């Protein structure tokens, strides 16, 4: 499968930044796939998206999008991409229908085709019954969905979705997921940044975890799982001491108890021990959140704005 996006040693240091927001990021994204970029706020996700979508110049490295150099031939790239910028808001004085339709017309689409695509995407995104509602009268979640609809209705080959489901309720998130999956079935490529690891895992063929502007780990979700030392998690109450648990694996204190990352045999042994002591215990394969914790040393949600990433 050809690459839809390829970056080589991509770096970015903002003019007033002390640390690089991106530090040698090399990624390949195959055409027709969904690629998840995960990391904390300020890790460098948005900077990567902004460079690849020709909004920002890199300080070093190269990036090729759909076969075109994003730095020297931005016009070629822009004709083939669409983006939902992070924290973007739709034009509030338009209706949802106008927002999608005129976005397509602004991109140069023929009126008849724009009309057909608008009607279709509004149906698919569950927005048809609100098509004539002003954006200013919508909830935050619906506004976000309207933005997503706007981008999905376009004929872009590569979609950059920078945290498209932030602030959406679970049902709305699922509708956006369905739209992303549909885009993939249509053969389009999606670069998705998200805080929601379940979302990244459910949608992405491959993932990259970014921390402080560097790729910590990259691969398919199962490849990433296989790269961590402890593939199982056991949660236990505080009645056992940390010293008792330490031989089984890596122990972390969490609210109301302990979390032990362990190999399968150790996890089973520990579960058996806890059951013998009549303790509430749960053993499960690790989640992506746990992988993040193991690789980075702190949870995804801990701390904000790591590097010099500009909004």
């Amino acid at each position, binding site marked *: 499968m050809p690459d839809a996006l390829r970056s080589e040693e991509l770096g970015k240091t903002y*003019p007033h930044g002390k640390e690089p927001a991106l530090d040698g990021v090399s990624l390949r994204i195959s055409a027709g796939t969904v690629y998840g970029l995960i990391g904390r706020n300020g890790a460098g996700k948005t900077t990567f998206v*902004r460079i690849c*979508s*020709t*909004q*920002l*110049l890199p300080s070093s490295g190269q990036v090729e999008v759909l076969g075109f150099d994003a730095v020297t031939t*931005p*016009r070629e790239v*822009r*004709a083939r*991409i*669409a*983006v*939902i*910028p*992070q*924290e*973007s*808001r*739709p*034009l509030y*004085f*338009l209706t949802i229908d*106008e927002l999608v339709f*005129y976005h397509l*017309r*602004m*991109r*140069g689409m023929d009126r008849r085709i724009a009309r057909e695509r608008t009607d279709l995407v509004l149906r698919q995104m569950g927005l048809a019954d609100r098509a004539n509602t*002003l954006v200013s009268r919508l909830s935050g979640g619906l506004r976000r969905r309207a933005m997503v609809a706007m981008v999905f209705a376009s004929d872009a080959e590569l979609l*950059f979705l920078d945290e498209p489901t932030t602030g959406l309720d679970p049902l709305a998130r699922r509708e956006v997921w369905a739209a992303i999956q549909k885009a993939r079935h249509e053969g389009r490529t999606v670069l998705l940044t998200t805080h929601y690891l379940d979302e990244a895992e459910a949608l992405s063929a491959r993932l990259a975890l970014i921390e402080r502007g560097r790729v910590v780990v990259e691969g398919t979700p199962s490849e990433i799982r296989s790269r961590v030392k402890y593939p199982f998690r056991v949660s236990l109450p505080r009645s056992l001491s940390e010293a008792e648990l330490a031989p089984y694996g890596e122990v972390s204190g969490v609210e109301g108890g302990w979390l032990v990352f362990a190999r399968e045999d150790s996890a089973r042994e520990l579960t058996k021990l806890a059951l013998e002591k009549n303790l509430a215990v749960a053993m499960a394969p690790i989640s992506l959140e746990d992988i993040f914790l193991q690789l980075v040393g702190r949870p995804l949600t801990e701390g904000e704005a790591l590097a010099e990433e500009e909004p």
Partner: protein
Amino acid sequence: MSVRHRLRSLWTIAYMNGVIPVRRQPLYLLNTIASPLSFLFFIALASRGTLLRPAIAGGMILTMISIGTSLQADLTHYKQDMKFQDLVVASPVEAPIYVAGLALSEFLYSIPGLSVFVALWVATGPLPGVFDAATVIGTLLLVWAFSSALGFTLATYFEDIRETFVFGPLVSLGLTVLPPVYYPATFIPAAYRPLAFLSPATYAADLLHRAFSLGALDPRFGPPLLAAPLDWLALIAVTAGLFLLAATKARWREP
């Protein structure tokens, strides 16, 4: 993008930003006419009507300059608050099309205001000839163009919408209130008159004062400051310079 597609993009942006909001809230139209009419009102009243004609010309110019300051505010709002410009940058729409579309939308807003001034112009003096009308149209189009280029350049450097609240009135003050736009240049003491040439609006006002036959109607207003070709040359040069500035210094893709 073909020329047809570019024109389609341009008109769509103008329609989205200039026609739809007005259709929903017609009071928006008052915004562009409020300041120019207020100045006209006070100047005409304080001068007991003698400065009405120069003030009409000033109102036309201020209306056009207001397009630049409104454009500056809209661009900053769409870039910083809505992140709409980021969406546009990463699309087939080119910077000149986006700016021209928004500038056209601001122009659409100003049409009712301009109509009022044109009506006052026709009603308060001899019926203007074709040449005078062409002079007024050409001058106002150039003012629209340079104020839009200036607005775009400034907007790309602003990081907060509040900065436009500061710079907008300053631009209006520097371009239209202090220079001889609402009043004849001959009212400025001769020693300070050259300072008026610092504002490009002075050349526009000089052309309009000529088209309005101010000197002929009232000898106190005196002759125009410069010969008409020099006014045109200066106005075209300023417009070209500001377009060059916009093309080279404005930040479409962030560095």
